[in-house]
């Protein structure tokens, strides 16, 4: 929020000190700034305002100030909120562990020259161009308890006892959705890592080899440091995308069964658009905003420091 608050004074000072440069920049900046301010920045700020109000989403009904009531209800009388917040955090942690390491391994493997390399890369990448809502439909079908491929395969190989109603059991549904997200998300991170690997200085790797460094040592001492900027980008994108998860859950369980796969992004939406309590939705969104900013601001600071060098 501090970023937002300091904007106006900064800009006025600019105008006073360097009128010509800033005047030149205005026509280039203005179209993007208007769109961005009106349809992104303002809605986000308004979400915070909405969290102190009550509104049912109808044009003619007024918004009423209710102070901290929405937050009180959220923190004390809404068990789904806590479930959703925990799930969002679990999703972030799991995404940082499983798909990220998987995509790094794939990138390292597919950085070697080999037969069919481009085909392999394509196969791992293509799920990423499918809409998440589509992926949700595909995996709902795979998870179908009666006709789905997963249960049928388990049955066929004699593991029928492992059959589950994958999306119907509260303990499993959330993780079943996560598996679909791994399938969809690994390819994109792999491409980012592959791009980063192009920047690893080859002569350094060769030099380390001549010096007798093992593959493991070469990886930690030469490759990983060169990959650091890419890794930071991947980590941040992974965190943001994890907090954003919405389509997959809407398409596979809509947060159920019994809200067991609920996440903050979807809970905020459900409160606003299904329950018509836009204030509650705003409060949930504000919690999500604070979570995102806590993770983003350090990154912004880091990337700008790199810019000065």
């Amino acid at each position, binding site marked *: 929020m501090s*970023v937002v608050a300091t*904007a106006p004074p900064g*800009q006025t*000072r600019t105008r006073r000190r360097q009128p010509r*440069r800033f005047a030149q*920049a205005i026509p*280039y*900046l203005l179209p*993007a700034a208007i*769109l*961005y301010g*009106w349809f*992104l920045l*303002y*809605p*986000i700020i*308004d*979400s915070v305002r*909405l969290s102190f109000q009550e509104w049912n*989403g109808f044009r003619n009904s007024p918004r009423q100030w209710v102070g901290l009531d929405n937050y009180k209800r959220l923190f004390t009388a809404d068990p789904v909120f806590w479930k959703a917040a925990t799930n969002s955090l679990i999703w972030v942690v799991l995404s940082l562990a499983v798909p990220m390491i998987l995509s790094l391994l794939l990138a390292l493997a597919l950085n*070697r020259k*080999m037969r069919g390399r481009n085909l*392999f*890369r394509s*196969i791992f*990448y293509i*799920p990423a*161009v*499918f*809409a*998440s*809502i*589509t992926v949700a*439909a*595909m995996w709902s*079908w*795979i998870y179908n308890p009666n*006709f789905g*491929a997963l249960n*049928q*395969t388990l049955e066929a190989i004699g593991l029928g006892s492992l059959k589950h109603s994958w999306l119907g059991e509260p303990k499993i549904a959330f993780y079943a959705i996560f598996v679909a997200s791994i399938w969809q998300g690994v390819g994109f991170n792999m*491409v980012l890592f*592959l*791009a980063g*690997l192009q*920047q690893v200085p080859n002569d350094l790797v060769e030099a380390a080899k001549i010096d007798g460094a093992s593959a493991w040592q070469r990886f930690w001492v030469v490759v990983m440091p060169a990959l650091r900027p*890419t890794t930071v*980008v991947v980590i941040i994108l992974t965190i943001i995308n994890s*907090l*954003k998860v*919405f*389509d997959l859950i*809407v*398409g596979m369980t809509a947060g159920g069964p019994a809200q067991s796969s609920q996440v903050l*992004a979807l809970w*905020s*939406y459900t409160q606003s*658009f299904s329950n018509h309590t*836009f204030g509650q939705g705003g409060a949930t969104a504000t919690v999500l905003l604070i979570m995102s900013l806590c993770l983003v601001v350090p990154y912004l600071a880091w990337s*700008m420091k790199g810019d000065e060098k």
Partner: protein
Amino acid sequence: MTAAPAAPAAPATPAAAIPALPPTTAAVPRRRKRRDYVGIALWISLAISSLLWALPFVFMFLTSVKSKKDISQRPTWYLPTEWMWSNYTDAIETGNLWGTGTNSLIISVIKVPLGLFLAALAAYAIARIRFKRYKLALGLFAAGAMVPIQIGLGPLFSTMLSLNLLDTRWGLLLPYLAFGIPYQMFMLYGFFRAIPDELEESAQLDGAGRFRQFWQICLPLAKPALAALFILDFVATWNEYAMATTLLQSKTNWTIPVAVQGFSGQHSTSYGPLNAFIIMSAVPVLIVYLMFQRYFVQGAFAGAIKG
């Protein structure tokens, strides 16, 4: 499987080994051989995992050409007893594929180039005109790329309601433009920043104005980034669901992802047409992907992603 691993330096296949293998010491070939085993193991595990990765597509396709009877009575991985291509025509009709496809196409075709152009203008201003406090402007823009869109959905709905743009094409296009700008601006900023000042100075001496410097020098130099951002943005726009489902209400205005969700909600038992619909809904992004594939698959993306 015989000539599986072609490790970078090792001419392992006989054909390649024949021409000019220098008479090296005995130790070197032995080392090469050992590396080949690693390569073979790696290749086999990659082949297995990519097969696994492709399986959902196989299931999807097989289901899309099966009759109801086949689906309920025979395992998923069996070939259909009769090929039900009519599932595809059914899906086109019940899912109103042409209507929703046209909506999606119109929005993507306007949004992607226009949004990229506006982001490039802003990135140029911040990277090249370098007014004071350009960093603040950069930070303000970039912050938008880092926030989940669902945070603003409620107020966005309320804004569109008061602008009378709810359930219209414009009402979707405007926020789409806004949500694409931050990320693209941030990426292009890095690119424009790296352009040496001398290039612009010499253009200035030749009498080129600001806009010509932008249009004829900076934009062409950023081509690889623009291409990468184009495909990313096209895919993201074509696939966007959360905003579309919030801001569009009448079926005639639906975009493809809303239609996919609507289809699977309404026809959840007609698996054949549902899978056919899913396959067809992804055709445009697959075409765009294949067109720009080299940027992704061959690491040409490197320059476009700023560390």
